[in-house]
């Protein structure tokens, strides 16, 4: 019996050593991969595009057209807003607003934490949701610093009050129990590109909120194209992004409202 026990102990030792070595190597590789990922210039991909949005706070009047157009084109239920417009104080005597779509982060916390990879990066930088994979654990909601995500607490049935006044739905309605968010109107971009249109220039290929803005406060385009309107705006104007300290690398830029602009 003693020999049996010794054998078993030897076997256990061998197993522990083996498992420990493998686990150690895995851990090492994982740490390496994580550090690389954190330092790399965003999601690796083949796309030639890098979509970005520029929102000019000097022009924004807080009318909320963007939210309504988004609601209609993406069939968003009334209690959810993919794009929220928030009163952000005053500059001089003028009210200033923050219009907040999904930031389409370069290092998106939601993508990092999703246990089923329902949130993922597209090669062109859009942070996408796979509504067929999402299990509704809401970890991404807890992780997003921008409150850009909303859970479908109940089934959205009946008519969308924003339709047809603000547009027609272009994507399927999400089922109860999944988290949803702004997708930069990927469907408009993709269909537009197929038809040879230019997102940011041709309205049919541009996010609905940008098209709907009555004062032209929102611009959309390709950061990889130095001639695009967003590239030029960012090159010639001071801009900022929300919570840059977090290192998320948002693809939504803001041109701040300044005192002289209001006078």
């Amino acid at each position, binding site marked *: 019996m003693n020999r049996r026990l010794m054998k078993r102990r030897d076997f256990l030792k061998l197993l522990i050593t083996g498992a420990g070595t493998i686990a150690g190597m895995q851990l090492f590789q994982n740490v390496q991969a994580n550090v690389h990922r954190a330092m790399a210039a965003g999601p690796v991909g083949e796309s030639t595009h890098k979509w970005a949005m520029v929102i000019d706070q000097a022009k924004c009047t807080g009318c909320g057209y963007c939210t309504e157009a988004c609601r209609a084109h993406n069939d968003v239920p009334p209690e959810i807003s993919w794009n929220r417009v928030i009163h952000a104080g005053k500059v001089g005597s003028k009210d200033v607003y923050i219009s907040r779509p999904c930031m389409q982060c370069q290092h998106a916390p939601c993508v990092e934490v999703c246990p089923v990879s329902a949130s993922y990066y597209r090669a062109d930088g859009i942070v996408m949701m796979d509504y067929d994979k999402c299990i509704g654990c809401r970890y991404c909601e807890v992780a997003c610093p921008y409150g850009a995500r909303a859970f479908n*607490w109940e089934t959205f049935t009946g008519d969308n009050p924003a339709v047809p006044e603000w547009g027609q739905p272009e994507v399927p309605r999400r089922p109860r*129990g999944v988290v949803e968010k702004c997708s930069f109107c990927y469907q408009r971009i993709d269909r537009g590109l197929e038809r040879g249109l230019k997102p940011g220039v041709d309205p049919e290929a541009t996010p609905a909120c940008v098209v709907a803005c009555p004062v032209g406060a929102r611009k959309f385009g390709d950061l990889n194209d130095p001639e695009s309107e967003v590239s030029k705006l960012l090159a010639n104007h001071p801009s900022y992004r929300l919570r840059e300290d977090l290192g998320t690398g948002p693809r939504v830029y803001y041109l*701040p409202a300044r005192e002289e602009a209001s006078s």
Partner: protein
Amino acid sequence: MRIKPFRFPAWRLLSPTPSHGWLIALGGVMLAGAVSGVIVLTKGLVVTNLTDLVPWGLWITIDLSAIAMSAGAFLLCAAVYLLGLKRFQPLARTATFIGLIGYSMAVLCLLFDIGRPDRFWHALVFWNPHSVLWEVTICVTLYFTVLLLETAPILGQAEWVQRRWPRLARRLASVHHYAPVFAMIGLGLSMLHQSSLGATYGVLKARPIWYRPDLSVLFIVSAMAGGPALTALASTLAASLSSKVKVNDGLIDQLSHFIGWVLAAYLYFRFWDAFAMTYTYEPGRTEGLSLLTSGPLSFNFWIGEMLLGAVIPIIILLNPRLRSRKLLRMIALALVVGGVVAYRWDTNLAGQLVLLTYLPQEITVRYTAYIPSLVEFLVGAGIVAYGLMAFTLGARYLNVVNHEVAPEAEHQMKMVTAGTI
């Protein structure tokens, strides 16, 4: 040899005993929970008080607590089969059974909590190895399998199973041969996911009060106190409520002593963790801390977690004279369990009740609120009642708390396996 069929003596129902009352009460709570559960599944999570600002609530707390309370299984199995502290084997047996119940409770909680319970298996298929929650899911799934294998011998050793299905019983009991391997795998998996549950919160930069490496350490250390505490408490309780259940008080005394030291270590880590956060103002973190020290969670924190959950049990469990008084020791163990549950509740809420705005001018803080809805309470109570019911039945019919028979069983097991080879 004739095999006597297992029969429940029906006449017993006609003369109710206190234990029947207990089981009927638990059944009632479970029924209420089941009805509420059906409401949740049909109407959706809109019937909860959870919001997009506080998406994790009572059920997540029960889930976290149930997993923490199951930590006795991996600890005691490691002590018995890897460190060779064979005398703790009967306690390991009880802890394993409690672990199985705890993990099944956690899974039940999650099934109600996730928006798409029909997709519970997605994490096993659509991998995101970068997500700590994915790692937790995989570990929990694997460890649940280990627990099933570890509890199989308990079923195989039960007298009525042996009488009715002798072959099955022998086969189930023979699984015990691999106990050391299970103990090792269980130790690895538990160290991983018990800590990762803390890291689930700890890696979120958007929530400053959570964003610190200590959470994973605090989660596993508190689980190492809470898990064995529940095992010791449940064993003592079962022995004092039923004349059939026999425990070795010396073993429980030793385990309680160990729990006292773990708790002291936990308090030490917790102190430096909290103390370090009191220096300098950090938006969101300071507010989160003040929710605990002087806000709506302060009673939980000071009284529930610190005084009752740590300081008093440490004094009782580390003092041989106080510890030897059975009632006092039981109270201390119950306080440890309560303290760990309070810690999970407070941790989960502290990060969600404080919201950092993302407005550029100044980083300001907003407060949110959360009180579980009736449906949430009922489902939660139903799940807890299920756990208590499962343990009660286990103690009665599977002999899960028995400090007299087990060492014998260990010996028998070797004979059985030697005979089959």
